[in-house]
């Protein structure tokens, strides 16, 4: 065991894959000389050189489109889009190109690439640097979507994402980068599509993603004091989705709250809720409850931002509403 920051865990995973496979390279804005806006790629430029750790102009289409072309022709790109908000500038390259190649060209192509991007708010960066757009990409057949909540998960999932032969969208919450925790020694991949029960409980299932896993665990502690024993399940990958683990938990607790940082309108949490309603309706004792951001852009000033984004007390209240 060793204790590392979330950002270091991702870096260690990328470094390990770069050491083991000369086809792996990093590409993005400010990732080389300065080591990335959140420091994820720090040190890689010095170790692997400018050929394999590529600083780019501010050209999101080129970053993703070039990565997709390189992936088709023998390389394995790990691209960084600084904030998932900027991913929209490259939406054509992700959605119409990378996600579609294998299918529309008849199955003869492989697109082994990772697009990493910071997601979520909490740093007073306002409307264009704080969104949670994961549902946008979960909607697209051809993409896999990963959203870890701990350093250990980030490490193992990044290794699997780089080794995957499909385009993988890798979401990293801005406020998790500086969270540290133990990670196992070595570089064991965590397969995509396997959820993790972060806390066992018997009274209610909380399905949460990203930073909301941490908030849900905090909420579970408060709820325990009031005699409610919540189980917290982190799907870790939004597609492929491990429904089995989530449903097993539901069958036990018969109640569910889904907690994500997205605006609730058209959210991944709505997809999760509808899956549960379709497949597990008979197992539920109470209505499905969702906690998310308000349906507004993310505001700047701290009091407004805190109000708009889901907080621990919102989760506690949501859970109590079905008891």
């Amino acid at each position, binding site marked *: 065991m060793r204790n590392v920051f979330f950002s270091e865990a991702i870096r260690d995973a990328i470094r390990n894959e770069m050491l083991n496979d000369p*086809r792996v*390279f990093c590409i993005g804005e400010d990732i080389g000389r300065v080591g990335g806006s959140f420091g994820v790629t720090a040190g890689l430029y010095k170790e692997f050189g400018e*050929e394999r750790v590529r600083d*780019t*102009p501010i*050209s*999101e*289409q*080129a970053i*993703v*489109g*070039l*990565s*997709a*072309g*390189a*992936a*088709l*022709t*023998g*390389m394995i790109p790990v691209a960084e889009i600084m904030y998932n908000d900027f991913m929209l500038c490259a939406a*054509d*390259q992700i959605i*119409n*190109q990378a996600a579609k*190649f*294998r*299918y*529309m*060209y*008849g*199955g*003869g*192509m*492989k697109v082994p690439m990772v697009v990493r991007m910071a997601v979520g708010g909490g740093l007073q960066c306002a409307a264009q640097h704080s969104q949670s757009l994961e549902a946008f990409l979960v909607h697209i*057949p*051809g993409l*896999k979507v990963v959203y870890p909540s701990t350093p250990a998960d980030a490490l193992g999932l990044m290794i699997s994402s780089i080794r995957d*032969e*499909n385009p993988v969208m890798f979401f990293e919450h801005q406020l998790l980068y500086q969270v540290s925790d133990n990670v196992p020694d070595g570089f064991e991949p965590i397969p995509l599509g396997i959820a993790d029960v972060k806390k066992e409980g018997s009274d209610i299932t909380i399905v949460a993603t990203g930073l909301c896993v941490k908030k849900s665990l905090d909420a579970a502690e408060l709820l325990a004091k009031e005699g409610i024993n919540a189980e917290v399940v982190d799907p870790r990958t939004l597609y*492929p989705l491990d429904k089995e683990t989530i449903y097993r938990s539901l069958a036990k607790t018969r109640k569910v709250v889904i907690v994500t940082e997205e605006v609730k309108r058209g959210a991944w949490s709505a997809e999760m809720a509808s899956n549960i309603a379709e497949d597990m309706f008979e197992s539920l004792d109470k209505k499905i409850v969702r906690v998310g951001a308000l349906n507004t852009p993310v505001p700047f000033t701290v009091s407004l931002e805190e109000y708009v984004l889901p907080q621990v007390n919102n989760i506690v209240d949501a859970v109590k509403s079905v008891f």
Partner: protein
Amino acid sequence: MEKRELLDLYQTMQTIRKFEFQTSKSFAEEIVQGFVHLYIGEEAIATGVCANLNRDDYITSTHRGHGHIIAKGADLKRMMAELCGRETGYCKGKGGSMHIADTDLGILGANGIVGGGFNLACGAGFSSKMLKTNQVCVCFFGDGATGTGASHEAMNIAKVWKLPVIFVNENNLYADSCRITDGLASESTADRALAYHMPHYSIDGNDVLTVYETAKEAIERARNGEGPSFIECKTYRWRGHFEVEPETYRPPEELKLWKSKEKDPIARFEKYLLENHGVSEEEVKQIKASIDKEVKAAVEFALNSPLPDKSSACTDVYTDIVEEGRA
């Protein structure tokens, strides 16, 4: 160029044209479905460029892609089968006219998004550079694509990173219905390359030998590690933007001019071969007859091929996941 090589160019141009006229006919007969954008009138460009490429060199193509794909060596049978949505087609019936690809031939796909090939081409050039394979990538695109932001991001990064990419613009004067003078701020699409300090050419795209020689120079530059070039090939499409388009935006006399013997790339080259290289009418006739036979066989192959099994709709989304079908 040897007579044999010249006749190969002629054969490729004729193959494209005959395949395209057949496609038009089959579309009218509702054998070919969906959208088809025909390459008739532009044959000299794909032919002249691809004659310089090795089998493992890459191309990215466009919605008007049949010509590029034939010139890069694709199998007419599998092409026609794809246009007819058959299991034996290049994309097993999942792609159609706008998405034919063959990675074994370096064809990274026709692309339904205008400007879609630019950054992809840079990626292929990047791989070649990193893996030191000495392959080049030709990016074909129309005049309309020079209006996309993607094209500018790609040309800039291609130049900064000296990628072995050749940007080949087929300027047929119309971006769908938008006349070039209404859509381009500069005189020539090649002016775009000026901004990126890229060697650039503006040539007669209906003269196959000029295309061949210009592409040769640009491809050699790319292979020598000297980075990208831009070639504007001036041309004209004989058909509408897509088949059965109600064509209301082009003056009929303009079309007539471009279809004349003086402008038609195939008639011009045929005349040149007959007058300068001792090619006989009989040789030309034989080439045409053999292509007719090949195109006919392609249609027969397509029509005799099965439609894909419905379950195949759920495969190939991922390498390792089969999506759920209908209950």
